Each structure stands twice: as C-alpha cells, then as structure tokens.
C-alpha cells in the first residue's frame, strides 16, 4: 500500500505540473533583454575534455553574445584533452581578449566535470558565474535574460531551457528532445511557478560567485554534481529561478549506447544525492513544506522505475495469493498499482502537453515510443542501484565519470 501511495504521489505531481504549465498565471521574473539594467560582471565557464568537434562552435557563439564584452569573461577549462581542444580554444583566446584558456595537466585532469569546474573557479572574476557545456549553443541574449533574475537577492542560481539541436538525426535524439520538452517546458516551468525545487541542470545556468564559494565549489565525488548543487543551494536558504525563454541548444546523444551511458551516470549520481540529501531536506529550516515534499520526490525520482518493477513483482505475488480471503483487499490494489506504475501515463502526457505548448504537433506522434526509454530506464536504474550498493560494500568512494562523446553533428542544423 505504501508503494501504491508513493507512486500515486508521483502521478499527482505529474498532473499538477502539467496543469500548471497549461493554466497557471503568475508574474514571471524580469526576463526581457531590453529592460535589463542590472549588468554585473559575469564569467562563463566552459569545461571541455576532448571536445575538438564542438569547441569552436560555442566559442564562436560566445563572441556573438550581446552582453557587453567589457563585463564578460569566458574561461575555457581544457580538462587534459588529448585532441585539439586546447589549441582551438587558444586561437580564440588570441583573437578575443575576454576569452581565456586554463589547461589542466593530464596527471591531474580528465577526471570529470566537477573537478574541472573547481579548477575554473579559481580563475573567474565575475560576480555571476555561468556554466555551459562545450556542445551547447545558446541564444545571443541569454546572459541578459538569465542575469535579470539575480536582481532578487534571494535568488542564488538561475537555469535556462535546454532544447535539442540535432533532433532530426535519429530516433534517439527525437526521443531525447521529447524528454527535454517535458522536463523543461513543463517540469521546470511548473516548479518555478509553484515555488518548488527548481533544478539546476549543471549547464545553461549560473549562480552567484559568493554562494558557490560559500558552498566550497563542486563535490568531485558526485556524479550528478548539478543535482547536488541544487540541494546545497536550497539548503543554504537560496532559491533557483527557471527562465523558459532563455533557450540554449544541446547536442543530444545519438545512439542507444550513449544514451545508456549518460543516463547511467545521471541515475547513479541522482541516487547518490538522494542518499546524501534526503534527511537534510526533511529537517531543513530553510525549506517550506511544499519544497520539502517536492525535494523528497525529486531526490527519489530515479527510484520510480524500480518501484514499477516492484509493483509488477508484488502484483504477481498477490495474484498467486488471491484465494486467501484477507488478501482480497490487497488484490484490489493491484490494478491501481499497475495503473500508477507503467500505467502511470502522467509523464507521457506531461511530455505531450510540453510539445503542444511549443506548437510541435508532429513530434506528438512519437510519444508512445517513449515507452522504450521508460523500459530502458528500468534497467538503467536497477543497474545503477546495484552498482551503488556494490560500491558501498567494497568501500569505493569515487565513481568513474563517463564522458558523453560529441561529434559535432549538431552543426549541420545551424544555418
């Protein structure tokens, strides 16, 4: 029954988000680039490990940003690349005085994004720090749109929207695009509007330098350093704002193998965060009740596919025990648990509404295929949990950072 209650809570949450994205009306934070008067010095950090295929694209874009260049600083952290990433970044640094390159020695570097960001943090001078992954391609006025939120002193961090650049490339990229639509256009948007836990996605976002220094940077042991930072920011008493019209394109994974690797890292990292932050979130005095509830559900989100498996197993067990009289009541819970596990259509409708709000009619046709990613995520999350438990038993603290390979195919879709 507890399982059914928990899954039902997720179901309600999904529908609440969907309806909020559709109908909720609330004053949005100032986001018009033309009205921005708050223009502090900002630093953009771009961690890059073997990103020669995409590094020029984002650096070119940095030169096209509309934010005043005298108040902009771009730090490329060449994280022990063995390809031409460093050389290409250096060329840009030569031509543009606001671009700087920090090289990391192979003896110390290449061990993941959090370490690279911590290194970059030592070189930044901006009041606000933004992070962009090397495969991203932001709007020209994205910095203005995001920076406007920092007028509010309670805002510690800000998050923009991620959209898939190479969407037409394959079925995987199309499905990832759908997931992103639901995740940002509905989930993040609704969380922001409802005053819940808006997630910092680790890229296309920024934070106050004073705050990140107070939090002592990123934890290199965490595989989902963004989720970890999200909760540390909220626990420190700050908020994260989401700006839907601050768009940035990403190069999504293009095949199932890359999808598996990327999601495995996310699942493991998210579970690490759940184990670390669940109690601090529950007992925190800086969080309101609704934030605690949402924080709890958000931290456990990667366990949901496991709950689905559990619901199946329990369903089968209950079926076998059905003749027992007192079990009849529980038997009634079976269809409910089914309909709130795999039958939990809510995430799919959430994605559908996201696509509808974006006016993406044709992509709606692919929604049923999201069942594939759902099934795959059951395997990914199960394996992630087993791996984490195994690491606990063996006392292994550090997990290998599996880098997502970007081959620059997204450039074909830029006019």
């Amino acid at each position: 029954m507890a399982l059914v209650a928990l899954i039902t809570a997720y179901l309600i949450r999904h529908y609440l988000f969907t309806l909020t994205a559709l109908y909720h009306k609330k004053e949005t934070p100032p986001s018009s680039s033309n009205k921005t008067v708050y223009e502090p010095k900002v630093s953009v950090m771009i961690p890059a490990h073997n990103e020669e295929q995409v590094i020029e694209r984002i650096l070119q874009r940095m030169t096209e940003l509309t934010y005043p260049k005298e108040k902009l600083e771009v730090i490329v952290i060449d994280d022990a690349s063995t390809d031409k990433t460093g050389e290409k970044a250096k060329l840009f640094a030569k031509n543009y005085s606001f671009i700087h390159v920090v090289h990391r020695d192979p003896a110390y570097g290449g061990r993941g994004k959090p370490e690279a960001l911590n290194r970059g943090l030592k070189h930044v001078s901006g009041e606000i720090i933004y992070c962009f992954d090397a495969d991203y391609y932001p709007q020209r006025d994205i910095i203005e749109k995001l920076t406007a939120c920092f007028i509010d002193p309670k805002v510690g961090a800000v998050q923009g929207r991620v959209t898939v650049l190479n969407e037409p490339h394959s079925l995987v990229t199309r499905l990832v695009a759908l997931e992103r639509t639901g995740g940002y256009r509905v989930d993040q948007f609704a969380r922001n509007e409802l005053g819940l836990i808006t997630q910092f996605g680790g890229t296309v976002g920024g934070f106050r330098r004073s705050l990140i220094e107070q939090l002592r940077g990123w934890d290199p042991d965490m595989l989902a350093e963004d989720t970890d930072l999200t909760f540390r920011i909220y626990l420190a008493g700050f908020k994260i704002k989401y700006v839907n019209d601050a768009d940035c394109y990403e190069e999504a994974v293009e095949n199932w193998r890359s999808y598996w690797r990327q999601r495995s890292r996310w699942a493991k990292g998210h579970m690490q965060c759940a184990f670390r932050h669940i109690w601090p979130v529950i007992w925190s005095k800086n969080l309101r009740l609704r934030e605690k509830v949402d924080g709890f559900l958000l931290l456990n989100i990667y366990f949901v596919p496991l709950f689905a498996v559990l619901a199946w197993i329990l369903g089968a067990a209950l079926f076998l025990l059905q003749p027992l009289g007192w079990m009849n009541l529980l038997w009634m819970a079976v269809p409910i648990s089914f309909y709130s596990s795999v039958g939990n259509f809510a995430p799919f409708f959430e994605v559908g509404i996201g696509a509808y709000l974006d006016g993406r009619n044709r992509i709606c046709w692919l929604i049923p295929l999201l069942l594939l990613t759902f099934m795959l995520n059951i395997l990914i999350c199960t394996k992630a949990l087993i791996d984490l438990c195994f690491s606990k038993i063996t006392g292994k603290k550090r997990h290998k950072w599996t880098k997502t390979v970007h081959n620059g195919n997204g450039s074909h879709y830029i006019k």
Partner: protein
Amino acid sequence: MGGLVASKEDRVDHLRMRPNFFHMAVGSVLVTVIIFLHFQLIPTFDLPALVAIGFFNLLFVFLLFPLEGPLLRKTVLLIGGNTVGVLWYLIQLSFKEAFLVLNTDAFKIIVLIAKPLIDFVWIVAVWSLSLSVLASYRIKMERLEKS
C-alpha cells in the same frame, strides 16, 4: 554559423490559456453516456476494461477538452478513441478466450503484467494523435491571426 537554429517546426510563443470549462462539461456528459453505452452494448465488459476505458476518458476530459479547438473535433476524437478502446478490448478478449484452454496461473500472471503495457499502446497513441490534431489547429489559428 552565426544564424539562428531553425531547422525544425517553429515554436509557438506560450500564451497562458484559460481552460474551456464549457467543453469540459460537455465532455463529462459525453463520457458518462459513452461508458453507459459500453455496458449496454458489451455484456462481457469487466472491471479491468472499465478501468482502462475510464482512465482514457478521464484523461480526455481533463487534458484535451479544456484545450483550444472546436468542440466537434474533440467529440469526434473522443468517439474515435473509445472505438479503438473497444476494439482493443475485443481483441484482448478473443486472445483470452483462445488461451482459456491453457488456464494456467503462469498465463494469467503474464496477462496481468502485460495489461498496462497493452493498454498503454492504445491510450497514449490515441491521446497523442488527438493532441497533435489540436496542436495543428492552434498553430493554424495563430498563423491566421498573425497574417
């Protein structure tokens, strides 16, 4: 390289909508009538079938009827969806009857586990197709307004 990315359908600026409560009310009445008809016309209609059909209709009323679009179009989509649902149920029923000779617990468990997946196929597919119809309408109307 400096241009904007525009190789996909243009995104429509989001204007927060007001739910169409009148359409929702009409939808609720229609759903009640449809479910009543299901029970009248199909005597074998059981609880799991009712859950699936009921779930579909509930979603349709709450997540499709309030959206922008003509009532007639929504009604046609609702009736179409229910027809697919009934056909789907009849196919399942025929399989069930065909395998009744097996009548093993193992087979029943397979049915039990596979049922939400099987229902997912038609519910989500019909709903997403209907949504795309309404999205097309919305785009068309916005383009007309702009021009």
